[in-house]
């Protein structure tokens, strides 16, 4: 979460596109929610302003200029991988840069390139 925020040269979590939370209490461990880079992303389909464009290789690219801040994309993501930038009033979209992977000492998250259709 923190590594993701540092991409923008900031600390804290305001710009983080990763969500880590407990699975209903810490006794059950944690869930790490990151964008799965869907080949056919539902977030892009619901965007009324065409601000989210499917990205080659999966996932989406945000056009902040077009985004109207409606949050439909947040609701559309089945795994709740779209977080919200309260300061800018825009979605926080994972760009699959892999910076977070460098700061995961237990290899919970990985960056992999796969052929469409494979997982």
């Amino acid at each position, binding site marked *: 979460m*923190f590594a993701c925020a540092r991409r923008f040269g*900031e600390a804290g*979590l305001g710009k983080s596109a990763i969500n880590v939370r*407990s699975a209903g209490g810490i*006794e059950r*461990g944690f869930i790490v929610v990151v964008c799965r880079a869907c080949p056919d992303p539902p977030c892009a389909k619901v965007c009324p302003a065409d601000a989210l464009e499917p990205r080659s290789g999966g996932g989406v690219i945000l056009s902040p200029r077009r985004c109207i801040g409606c949050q439909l994309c947040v609701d559309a993501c089945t795994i709740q991988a779209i977080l919200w930038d309260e300061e800018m009033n825009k979605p926080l979209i994972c760009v699959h840069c892999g910076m977070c992977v460098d700061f995961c000492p237990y290899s919970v998250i990985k960056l992999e390139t796969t052929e469409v259709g494979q997982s």
Partner: protein
Amino acid sequence: MIKGDPLSRVLFVDLSLRRFWIEERQDLFEERLGGAGAAIELLQEECKRGVDPLGPRNPIVFAVGPLNGVFPLASKTVAMFKSPLTGNLGESHAGGRSAVAIRLAGYGAIVIKGASDTPVYLAIQDDRVNFRDASVLWGMQSSYTVGRVIRERESGGGIRTIMRIGGAGEKLVSYASVVTETYRHFGRLGLGAVFGSKKLKAVMIQGKRAVKVGDPKLCRETYRELYDAITESPAMKKYHDLGTPMNVNGLNELKALPTQNLKRAYFKAAHSISGEVFAEGFLGRRVACAHCPVACIHLAALRLPYEDEPYFYKTLMISYDYELIYALGSLLEVDSAEGVLRLVEAVETFGLDAMSSGVALAWATEAQERGLITEKETAGLKLRWSDFDTYIKAVELIVEQPNDFYRALARGVGYASSIYGGQDFALAFGGNEMSGYHTGPAAHIGHLTGARHSHLDGAGYSIDERAATSGKSPTAVEIADRLLEEERWRQILSSLVVCFFARGIYKPQVVAKALRVMGYELTSEDLMRKGAEILKSKHEYKASEGFDFSRLKLPRRILETPTPLGYLTEDLIKDGIRAYAGKIMLSQ
């Protein structure tokens, strides 16, 4: 500090008036960094001399520092208050998500004043404070259940802290803790009772702001250095592997493991409650505080059968650490990991400090053995070493307080022994119950002189362990010097607020560099000077509340049981106290 860093904002909450307001205190965070440094100033300002620790005029201060939310292992919050256990400075630190949540909600400190006349819990969401009715939660004995209810009722999963009390805090047990994120605690010195006295069942705080840094490039570079040092350091790996319970066998072999109320410092069954046995037989999960790659929190999975039905089980996840295994294990001669875990579970459920609870049970067992108290006092219990089932019942009675004896025991062993006798074997120092280190003179001089009477103040055990290895015993004056130097430096770590486990990484020059990222231009020398000033402030507060080094009492028991460095003498310990006190006075 960086202009506009929300660290400079202090949130005040008045429970009596149900009001809240925010004050800008850049001066405070500029001068005192944050954490312990800021908290002691706020306590001096808000806590008038001589107030009742369980009265509405005792404030609760939570403070974080400039490195929280920015660098790894800056994961702790400092709580400061007047302690109902010692009647003096109360200071306790906890991790979990508390520090990140406070910092990213946009505060450097939160001060909770007054008292509510009806049960309440606070839900702090960025700039808004909600006073929520807690009538339904009041009377809920289990800190776990309180957490579960609030978790489901409030938003902010993953970015919030839920600090709460169990039955012990409500019943004002002087060593009641505040539990946060189920497995972390403001354990020591009775913050839970202060919550209880205010009818404050819980405090939920959430936030996920961004924090501006002065130089993003320097920030990334410093982060990388810290992260690599932390993840590659063997010192940090030990906290991750077996965790602090690796000390059980080590201290036992040294003959420094307090056993049977410190009648001995060696436990013949120590191997059966060792870190290795816990890890191999019970370890179910390891987790970390927010913003820490170490994961030192060890959770044991304990499968318990229901008594009345075959093949019907529940599995509990219970956190364990060295101090719990000492206090609820060796000190009581509980000789099975399962027994220790069941006792830990009872203490955690009610929200009691594990160390004080274990010392209280150990003193009571010996007092009953010697006939100072009978089954009349214990409400029919026959306390026996190793009998954890009876100890669990005694824990329930400490919380319930059905008679004068349990009311006394709920105020700590110092108080209970002043009524029932047995002060010679009541293991408290400056009013705070002992930690698990009978390593030598420095551990006990540290317990007596440290600002919060904790082994973590100056880490005396580490001075003793070095003396045992090198064969060179330091003099009383040398011990006092080393304790003081360490304690002063730790004021800086606890002002940033960095976990003490990372003290080997966050050396003065590293701290100076990390602080530069946050807009502080300070040299190592400046930091050492600030550390000394913060400690001085704490001792000024303590002196104004009546603390006097010359009146410190030491339980004779520590002189009767040899340490790895031999028998301790009263003279050596008193010389150590005098030397420490002399240096503190000089600095005042």
